[in-house]
């Protein structure tokens, strides 16, 4: 299997990371060698193996849905790169 530039472009779009030509080529090289290493798993027959989906074999506990953090709105907004005091601001979405 080989990951080509077209695939890199596709993944970078899914991952929302812009990648220029030069980086795309570097990434293709890196990913190909990493996947070559990963392909080792194909040596193993796993048809009848149950996948491990949770390492902590416990059932989720229920808790009441209560507000614990109060009056931190200002501090939360302060962390945003752009705001207008009441909202997070993003580039215009609707024309």
């Amino acid at each position, binding site marked *: 299997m080989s990951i080509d530039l077209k695939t890199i472009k596709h993944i970078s779009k899914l991952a929302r*990371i812009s990648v220029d030509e030069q980086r795309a080529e570097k990434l293709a090289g890196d990913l190909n060698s990493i996947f070559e*290493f990963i392909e080792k*798993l194909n040596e193993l027959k796993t048809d009848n193996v149950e996948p491990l989906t949770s*390492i*902590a074999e416990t059932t989720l*506990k229920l808790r009441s849905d209560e507000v614990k953090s109060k009056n931190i709105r200002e501090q*939360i907004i302060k962390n*945003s790169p752009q705001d207008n005091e009441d909202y997070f601001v993003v*580039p215009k979405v609707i024309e």
Partner: protein
Amino acid sequence: MSDITKQSLTELVENIKNKKLSSRDVTKAFIDRSEKSEKLNAYITNDFTSALDKAKKFDQKPNFDLKLPGIPIAVKDLFCTKNIKTTAGSKILNNFVPTYESTVTENIWNEGAILLGKLNCDEFAMGSSNETSFFGNVQSPIDRNLVPGGSSGGSASAVAGQLSPVTIGTDTGGSIRQPASFTGIVGLKPTYGSCSRYGIVAFASSLDQAGPIAQNVKDCALLHEVISSYDPKDSTSIDFKRNHYSKELINNIKGKKIGIPKEYRVDGMPNEIEDLWQKGIQYIKDCGAVTIDISLPNTSYALPTYYIVAPAEASSNLARYDGVKYGFRAKGENLIDMYEKTRSEGFGAEVQRRIMIGTYVLSSGYYDAYYLKAQKVRKLIKNDFDEAYKKVDAILTPSTPSSAFKIGEKTNDPISMYLNDIFTVPANLAGLPGISIPAGHDTKGYPLGLQIIGKAFDEQNILNIAYAMEEKINFKNRITDWWIK
């Protein structure tokens, strides 16, 4: 007392309780040494002024019933600290100030500890050498231009260099044990679910665990006792009966059965590592325990499995960094363009690489071939340990396949960097506790570590084994203070 920073955590606690030292004496000593140690680049953010204030307050109204009375402690910058910048070593969180405190750090403050500062680490804990941090690489106190290991490299440097009596790190694939091994100190990765993940910047949620890094096993046990707790705020936190790990620490391991897994004898492993392992086996026998040859047949599949599971979870966890609610934002022509540029400029190369791997293995048409396959192999790896633990109480292996390497030596070859974690990753995949203790030096004079892997929730047992071995090994770390003029 001029040698305050040389004292162990246990000694400092004793001396504060006996009023031979004040919290201010201790805090001031570690701040002074930290200030002289800028060259190590161990800190991302210091909180020295406020630490001194807190120490003074403690001395005015001391509470000697606490487990860490007025003890200054620096923590990895992956733990959210309320009102104190938390970066995860990334440009994308460069200016993030949490409105909440991680449970693990909350636990240490509740026992009287005082925050010294936030320690450097690989970006989002992705790395084995502390070279991926946006804030620059960390130097090892062992030698100039030597990596301290990673991802908790700043934490390891801070303990080995005596900038903080102990620290807290996180371990997703070896990020506590490998740097502890590289710098000649002790690091414990607890059982998955033992320490709360609440407030820790997430990397791979099914693998991440916080744990103590210390000068010796007793300090490690004490800090672990404080940080391990059941926490309703983490849905994978496990409610089990926790020991008084430091009080119950004993060096009698007579009759314990220790497994030696033949699959950890990997191709190309230096003789020095094999020799160290053999010495470890002898120490075990000297302690009156027995060693038993065991097999963990799927060991060689652990690293490839890890490099599917961890990036997959990371790509999902890191989707939240979009430049909207917090962190760095790049200018974009529209919303999507802003997202893509923010993530391209905000994440470093290694993080981007792992997000790309993770996105690919989870993408339509590849999920079964990679992610599902990895989950199945993960089950086989866990089964290997379950089988082994029918015969043995714990397992002894080397911590790393080599000693620390030079800065820049492996940055261009991701696979050779990943191979550093070959002995530590299996415990994360199986959710088991593992401890690395310093056990000798290689021909270059660099420290080498041995790892003890235990059964789930059996931290007391591996701490006891480590404690007994520590006494026999009698390791002395060679710290020359090369970075202090």
